């Protein structure tokens, strides 16, 4: 009964999405206020029904209703309750439902927080988001119904993939989708602006906080995925340049370019056409990411061809969205009037360089990701493009962008002065060069890539400090008062940039100075790594809720002083028969000690064990956390709310006038 209710709610959601898209768009085109006014209630209603459907699916999982195919395939009666709940979005169908739920959530958020926008703008934005929603709801209902019944019902489920039974994987998809789908708001604003022909700075200002929030969520989603892979896959790596990872990284690169380009459009009215194009590109890449991961095209081009319904639907949808928006763009963009000019050295020109580099890097990642698929589809042989390609291309491309990142925020809009920038940054440059030369020696010998990393990290950090010093030098009042008067947008930007610096330092150290060993360990034997001594005390078997495990005991000490006792596990999940390595990690701010079990080697209890020493790895997550907080801080800047009040004033006056 409950699953049918969910199915029905989903159908009602589709009908409301159709209403939300068609009526307001027609209304906006004809200037009909009644039709435009449908947008908000329809969006909210759609959210209610999609949320109801999602709730019904979650209930089916929690109640172990194995007569629902999706539940039977992805859950298990002895699966812990929290994982039964999160299994709701562990499957293809469930995750697509989550996608639509989040889209409905964003639509409702736009409906609620858009009181200050002109009615036709709101109608168009919600209409476009409604259209996207129609596409995905139709996809769910026709090809991926999460409520399909299984007759006869299965006696028990075949369990959630053990890899997904982890906190990182619980939070990763919702955060990632908040980002992906959040870019739908930026996309809808861009399309709405193209439709109305009013591409002014106001459009960029409205779009900016939404885009920044979406970017922050996507950053969080990607990092959670990376953190999960690091702990759960047992290989100690945190980024593999795997196509699934690239699928989420490409919209992130485009989104990063977009939030910078939007800044120029809002402040200076320049780059309008380019910003609109980036907004279209960013969301298109979000859709492409969904297509790559969800159509099965990555595991095999041929699997996609033999079971084409899902892939063909998303591919068709992708073609309609990209094609349609590009046609609209080609038609409308020439009419856009570009804003003020700027000199070759100015905030604008530096942000332009940022955008050019980011888009070039994006192109390189796109090529490396799609080329093997293309070759395979054409029957030209099977190839793979591995991490060496991406590292060789991405690092040299990004290095200049990261250098400019230090300069950009200190240069004036329109007309900057190179000598002035040099005066303000010469100490930063000198200290960064010294750091690049000396810091590698304090770690473990000079390595050029590590040196570059130290240089960039120090340079960006000092440039952030220089920007604050500039802020505090001008104006009156105490330092505390001055700091309080610094707008949140500035804090957010500097915090995010500082986060990049922290992340770079982490990457530079862990990529160049980590050490690992695969060793055979007899009970009572020890191994040395990076100054630590690992003593193996054997493994014992025990029963988990839905698995059997061998639990090893490894004592870690340094110079005779005990540091920690780690318990890595090798699990065998009952229902699926899948083996899983559960690594054990001892983290601190400066390093992780990471132990993973291989396999039992003999009857005496010897195991193969993998040991890692990962210096500064946690700076990576810490830096990303700064970026996320910076994004949210910037999006909450008062400026966006002042814009709201200002635009309300005339309306209030007009109302008074009408009353008088």
């Amino acid at each position: 009964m409950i699953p049918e209710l969910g199915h029905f709610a989903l159908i009602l959601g589709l009908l409301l999405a159709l209403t939300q898209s068609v009526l307001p768009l027609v209304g906006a085109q004809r200037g009909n206020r009644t039709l435009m006014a449908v947008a908000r209630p329809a969006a909210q209603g759609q959210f209610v029904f999609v949320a109801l459907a999602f709730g019904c699916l979650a209930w089916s999982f929690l109640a172990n209703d194995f007569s629902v195919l999706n539940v039977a395939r992805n859950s298990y009666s002895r699966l812990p309750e929290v994982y039964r709940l999160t299994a709701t979005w562990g499957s293809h169908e469930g995750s697509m439902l989550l996608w639509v739920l989040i889209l409905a959530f964003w639509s409702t958020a736009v409906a609620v927080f858009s009181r200050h926008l002109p009615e036709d703008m709101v109608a168009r934005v919600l209409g476009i988001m409604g259209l996207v929603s129609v596409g995905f709801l139709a996809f769910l209902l026709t090809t991926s119904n999460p409520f399909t019944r299984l007759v006869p019902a299965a006696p028990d489920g075949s369990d959630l993939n053990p890899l997904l039974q982890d906190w990182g994987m619980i939070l990763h998809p919702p955060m990632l989708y908040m980002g992906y789908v959040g870019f739908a708001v930026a996309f809808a604003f861009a399309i709405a602006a193209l439709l109305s022909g009013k591409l002014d700075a106001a459009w960029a200002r409205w779009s900016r906080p939404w885009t920044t929030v979406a970017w922050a969520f996507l950053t969080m989603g990607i990092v959670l995925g990376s953190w999960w892979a690091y702990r759960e896959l047992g290989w100690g790596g945190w980024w593999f340049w795997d196509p699934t990872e690239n699928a989420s990284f490409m919209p992130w690169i485009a989104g990063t370019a977009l939030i910078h380009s939007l800044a120029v459009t809002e402040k200076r009215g320049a780059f309008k056409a380019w910003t609109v194009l980036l907004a279209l590109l960013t969301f298109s890449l979000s859709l492409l990411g969904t297509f790559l991961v969800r159509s099965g095209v990555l595991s095999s081009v041929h699997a996609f061809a033999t079971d084409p319904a899902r892939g063909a639907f998303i591919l068709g949808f992708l073609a309609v969205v990209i094609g349609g928006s590009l046609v609209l763009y080609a038609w409308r963009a020439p009419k856009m009037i570009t804003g003020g000019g700027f000199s070759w050295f100015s905030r604008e020109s530096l942000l332009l360089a940022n955008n050019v580099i980011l888009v070039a890097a994006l192109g390189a990642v796109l090529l490396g990701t799609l080329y093997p698929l293309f070759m395979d589809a054409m029957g030209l042989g099977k190839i793979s493009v591995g991490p060496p390609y991406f590292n060789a291309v991405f690092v040299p491309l990004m290095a200049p962008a990261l250098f400019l990142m230090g300069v950009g925020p200190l240069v004036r809009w329109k007309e900057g002065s190179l000598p002035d920038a040099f005066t303000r940054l010469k100490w930063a440059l000198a200290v960064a060069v010294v750091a690049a030369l000396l810091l590698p020696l304090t770690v473990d010998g000079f390595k050029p890539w590590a040196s570059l990393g130290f240089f960039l990290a120090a340079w960006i950090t000092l440039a952030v400090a220089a920007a604050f010093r500039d802020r505090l030098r001008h104006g009156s009042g105490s330092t505390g008062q001055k700091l309080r008067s610094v707008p949140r947008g500035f804090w957010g930007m500097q915090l995010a940039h500082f986060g990049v610096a922290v992340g770079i330092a982490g990457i530079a150290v862990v990529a160049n100075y980590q050490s690992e060993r695969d060793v055979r360990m007899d009970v009572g034997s020890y191994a040395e790594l990076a100054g630590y001594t690992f003593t193996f005390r054997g493994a014992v078997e025990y029963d988990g809720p839905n698995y059997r495990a061998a639990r090893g005991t490894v004592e870690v000490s340094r110079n005779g002083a005990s540091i920690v006792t780690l318990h890595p596990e090798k699990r065998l999940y009952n229902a699926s028969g899948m083996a899983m390595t559960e690594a054990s990690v001892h983290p601190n701010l400066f390093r992780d000690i990471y132990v993973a079990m291989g396999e039992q080697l003999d009857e005496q209890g010897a195991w193969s064990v993998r040991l890692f020493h990962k210096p500064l790895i946690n700076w990576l997550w810490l830096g990303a956390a700064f970026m996320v907080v910076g994004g949210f801080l910037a999006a909450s800047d008062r400026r966006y709310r002042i814009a709201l009040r200002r635009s309300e004033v005339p309306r209030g006056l007009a109302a008074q006038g009408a009353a008088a």
Partner: protein
Amino acid sequence: MKSRHKKLALIVLVLAALGIAAALVLNAFQSNLVFFFSPTQVANGEAPTGRAFRIGGLVEAGSIQRQPDGLSVHFVVTDTARTIPVIYTGILPDLFKEGKGVVAEGRLGGDGVFTATQVLAKHDENYMPPEAAHAVEQAQKAQQTVVE
């Protein structure tokens, strides 16, 4: 700066960036593309000797031999038609099993033994790495045509 000059500077900048990117990409592509060969192709001498590539197929039943050091493993990859002996040192992935699909990356020695630097077996008991499935499929097709 005049707007015409600005546009020109902009175009030069974009072209320069794209040129550098293209150069990097092509250079990296040249040296980092990893090709895939099935055991039959390797047996026919189609695989390069001086360069890393990937092989795929099934781990032949009964072929896994652990060496005395505990970490080196010898096994045989088959596409049901031809086989390749493989040496790997290190911890094997959780789903590496006899009779299951596997993909290995490494180099072919003069003695015909493939020294793997990486062994991939994806995380799903029923999942077959696409390359491995492809190799077996090709070999079986070839055998059928011979029979016919």
